[in-house]
C-alpha cells in the first residue's frame, strides 16, 4: 500500500514483543521523577497492544519530558522546543500505518508551542498526546511555566508567579473539533495506564494531560494530592476511563460524567478545588484531517507520470 515496497510491506510481523523490546537507553530523569512512570505505562501499553516497534513513532519537543523518545526502543523524533505537533502531523499525514505518540511538556506545549497545540487539536490527526505537566520548566532549571500556579516561586519570578495558571484542559475544550480530552496523574499507575490506553484506542488526536511530579523543583506541588486522594476528583462513566473498581475506590471523590457533555466537561475542567481526573470529552465524529492528507497514497508512478504529462499539456501554446 501507498508507495511502500509492496513485497516487504506485506510480510507478517511474527515474533512476539516483550517489555524489553520497547526499552531504549537508560532513563536519565531524576529519581522519583513522574516521567519514569509515564514511560513504563507507555512501554506496557506497547507490549500489551503488541505495537510493532518499527511501526511506532514517538515525537517530542525539548525538555526533560521530551527526552522520552530516547528511552523507547522505537522510532523517535526528538525535535525542537515547542514544535512536536507540526512534526507529528507531518509524519502522520502520509503514514496511516504508524502508531504515534507525542510527548510534550507544559512549557513545550503551552508556551512556545501554543499555536501548534491549538491547531493540532483542530486537525484531529490520529495520535496520542501526552502533556507531561510538572508546572515548571525543568530542563532549564526552574522557570515559571504557563501552568505554574500564581504565587509559586521560580528563578524568573522569585517573588512568585504573577499569572493565573493557564488551564490546558479548558483551553482545549474551547477548540472546535477537539475529539478526546483527558487528565490523569503519574502517581496512580492504573489510572495512568487506563487513560493512555483509551487515548491510544481513540481514532483522532487524544489529548492527555498528565499531572507530573518534579521532585527536584516542584515536589510540594503535587505531593498533597499524592498523599491525600481526597484532593482529586475522579470522573467515572461507561464511556470514560475504565479501570479496576478496586483502584476506583481509592478515590473518595467520584463523579459520574458523560464525556459527550461538553458544558459539564468545561465546568469540571474549571474546578480549582480539586484535580479532576478521567475523560472530560470525547467526540468520535470529529473530522480527521489525516484521512484527507492520505489522499493519493499508493498511486502508481505510471499514473503520476501520465498526470504530469496532462498537466503540462494544459500549458502547450
Amino acid at each position, binding site marked *: 500500500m501507498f508507495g*511502500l515496497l509492496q513485497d516487504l510491506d506485506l510480510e507478517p510481523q511474527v515474533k512476539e514483543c516483550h517489555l524489553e523490546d520497547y526499552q531504549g537507553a537508560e532513563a536519565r530523569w531524576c529519581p522519583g521523577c513522574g516521567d519514569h512512570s509515564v514511560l513504563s505505562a507507555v512501554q506496557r501499553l506497547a507490549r500489551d497492544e503488541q505495537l510493532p516497534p518499527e511501526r511506532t513513532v514517538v515525537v517530542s519537543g525539548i525538555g526533560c519530558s521530551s527526552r522520552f523518545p*530516547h528511552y523507547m526502543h522505537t522510532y523517535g523524533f526528538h525535535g525542537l522546543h515547542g514544535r512536536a505537533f507540526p512534526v507529528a502531523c507531518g509524519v502522520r499525514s502520509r503514514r496511516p500505518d504508524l502508531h504515534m505518540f507525542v510527548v510534550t511538556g507544559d512549557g513545550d506545549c503551552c508556551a512556545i508551542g501554543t499555536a501548534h497545540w491549538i491547531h493540532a487539536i483542530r486537525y484531529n490527526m490520529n495520535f496520542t498526546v501526552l502533556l507531561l505537566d510538572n508546572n515548571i520548566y525543568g530542563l532549564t532549571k526552574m522557570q515559571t511555566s504557563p501552568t505554574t500556579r500564581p504565587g509559586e516561586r521560580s528563578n524568573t519570578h522569585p517573588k512568585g508567579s504573577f499569572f493565573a495558571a493557564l488551564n490546558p484542559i479548558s483551553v482545549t475544550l474551547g477548540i472546535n473539533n477537539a475529539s478526546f480530552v483527558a487528565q490523569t496523574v503519574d502517581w496512580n499507575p492504573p489510572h495512568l495506564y487506563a487513560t493512555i490506553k483509551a487515548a491510544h484506542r481513540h481514532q483522532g488526536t487524544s489529548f492527555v494531560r498528565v499531572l507530573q511530579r518534579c521532585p527536584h523543583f516542584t515536589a510540594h506541588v503535587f505531593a498533597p494530592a499524592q498523599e491525600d486522594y481526597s484532593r482529586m476528583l475522579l470522573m467515572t462513566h461507561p464511556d470514560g476511563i475504565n479501570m479496576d473498581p478496586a483502584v476506583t475506590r481509592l478515590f473518595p471523590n467520584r463523579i459520574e460524567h458523560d464525556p459527550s457533555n461538553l458544558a459539564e466537561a468545561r465546568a469540571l475542567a474549571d474546578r480549582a478545588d480539586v484535580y479532576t481526573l478521567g475523560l472530560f470529552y470525547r467526540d468520535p465524529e470529529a473530522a480527521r484531517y489525516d484521512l484527507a492528507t492520505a489522499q493519493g497514497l499508493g498511486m502508481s508512478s505510471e499514473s503520476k507520470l501520465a498526470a504530469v504529462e496532462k498537466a*503540462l499539456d494544459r500549458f502547450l501554446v
Partner: protein
Amino acid sequence: MNASALESKPKIRGNEPAEVTQHIVEIVSDSGEGAQTCGQMFGALCAKSGNGVWTVEIIPAEIEPPARSRAGASGIRIRLGSGPVTNAGDEADVAVAFNEQVLYSRIDTQALRPGTIVFLDRTWAGNPMDSIRQMYAEAVADFHTRGYQVIEVPIEQECRKHTEEPRKGKNMWVLGLLCALYDLDMELVRDDVRRRFARKGDAAVLKNLTLLDDGYQWTLANVAHRFHVPARKLDKPMVVMNGNQALALGVMAAGIEVCSMYPITPATSASHFLASSFEQTGGIVHQAEDEIAAIGFAIGCSYAGKTAVTITSGPGLALKTEFLGLAVAAEVPLVVVVVQRGGPSTGLPTKIEQGDLLAALYASPGDSPKIVIAPATIEECFHFMILARNLAEEFRGPVMVLTDANLATGQQPFPKPTPKQSWMAPPVDQSDWEKGVPPFAWDPESGLSIRPIPGQRGGEYVLTGLAHDEYSHVAYESSINQRAMDMRSRKLAVFRSTLKPPRVHGDAEGDLLVVGWGSTLGAIEEAVDALRGEGLRVSSLHLRFLSPMEPGLKEIFARFKKVMTVEINYSDTPGTPHLTPESRRYSQLAMLLRAQTLVDVDCWSRVPGSPLPPAMIMAELRRRLQEVN
C-alpha cells in the same frame, strides 16, 4: 496624430508591415478590466506562431484600488522577439492605456520613451464630468510634449456597440487591435477565443468574437502602423507558463507528494496551482498555521520517508531558520523554495529582489552546511525541483531553491519537458534494516549515509537536534561533535567535486567578466551581447549552484582584467559619504566570491523593486569598461 482625423482619410488597409526583430507592448487598465487576460492571450498567440515571448504582469499594491488612479494601474507587458526572449527588456514600443491616469503609473516607472506609440481610450474626452474631461485633455497634451505618438482610440464607444458592460469587453477589443497591429493569423486567434469562452456558452463566445473582430477591423481601417516580428518554425511542442507554475509542475514531476506552506506573496501562487492540480499526482498541499509549522510538517513527512517541499518568501524564510538548522543537524532530506521579494522585513512584498542569498546560507546559528541552488530561467524552475529532491535524498539534508518575483510572475515559452520515471521519488524502502548498521553510518570519505525510515524493522532510532554520534545517541563526549560536523560539511565538498566549472558566455578572457545568479541571466547576457557587438571585451558567467559553488572560478576570473557581479540586492555605492574601500558592504554574491577566491570582485547592485533592464546594465558595464582601460 489624432485618430478622428484619420477616420476622414481614405481607408489605409493593407500597407506593408514594418519588420522588427523585437517589440515591447504594454497594456494598462484599472484592475478588473482584464488587461492581463488580453495580454496573456496575445503573448500565447505570438508564442504559438513561433515568436520568443516574455510577459510580466503589472500588479497594483491594493486589492481593489480606486479607478483611474496611478497606484491602481493593473496590466501587463509583453515582449516579442524573433529569437528567444529572456527578459522584459527596456522601454515599451507600444502602450495601450484604458485611461490616461494608469498610463502615468508606467511613465513614473520609466516604462515609456519618446516615440512610444500610445493607444489611449479617448472615450474619457466625452465624459460627463468636467474634471475628468479636463484631466484627460491635459494628459493628452502632456503625452504629446513627452514625445509619445499618441493615438486616441474610441475603445469604449466601439465596445458599447456590442455590450452593455464595456468594462468586461474592452480587453477583447484591444486584443483585436493588437492582432491587427502585429498582423497575427486571425483564425488562430478566433480558435483561442472560442476555446476560452466555450464553457461560458455560445452567447459569450459570439460577443467576444464580435468585439475581437471590431477591434481588428477598426485598427486596419484607422491605424497606419503595422508591425511584423518574424518567427522561426517551432521544431518541438512549446509550453508557456510563469516560474511559480513551472516549479509547481516540477514538484509534481519530481514525485514529491507533499507541499507544506503558509501563504506569502510572491510564493503563494505556486501553492495555489498545486492546490488545484496536485491531487492528479496523488499529492497534497498542507496550509499550516504558520511558517514554522509548515516546515515542521514537511520535515515530519521527510522523516517518515516522503521528502516534502515547503515554499515561502523572505519573512517566511526568517521563521524557518530554526527548523532548517535541525534538518541540517539531523540530516533530513527536504526541499525549501524561497521566492525572493523586496526586503528587509516586510519590505516590498510584490517586488523583486535577490536579497536572501546570505540568509539562505547563514541564517541558522552554528555551522549548517546545506545545498543552495538558483534557477535562472522559468524552464529551470521546473527542472531544478527534480534536481532538488534528488540532491536532498542523495546528500541527506535540506536543499534550498532560490527564485524571485521576476521568475514567479514572468511568462516564457520553453520546450515541453518529457517527464521520466527516473525523476520520480522511489517508493519508500520498508525492507528490514541491515543489522549493525547505525542510522548515521557516515562514510568517512564522503560523509554520506543512508537513513532508516519508520517501518524498517531493526532501523529504530531517535532523530535529535542535539549533538549526536552515528547511533544518533546524544553526545556527552565532545570529540563526537567535531566528527559529526566534519561529516556534514564534507558532503558539500563531495557534491562540489561532482560539478563542472560554469560556462563563460562570450570569450574565455577579456577586460570584464560579469557574474550573476538567478533571474538576471537574460538581461545580463543581452547587455553583454550588445556590448560585444560593439567590439567590447566583456563576458559573463551565471551561477546556478551557490552552496557549494561551482568549481574553477578563480582560474576563470584570472583571465579577466576585472570581475564584477550584477545583482538585485543592496551594496554600498563607492564614493558615498564616510565610505572607505575597506568598509564597503558588497552585494551578496560578490561578498561570497571575494571570500572564496580572494579576487577583488566588484559589484553593481540596485534595489528598485523591478528587474534591471538590459540598457541600464549596458550603461553600467560601459562605465566599468572605461575604468579598466
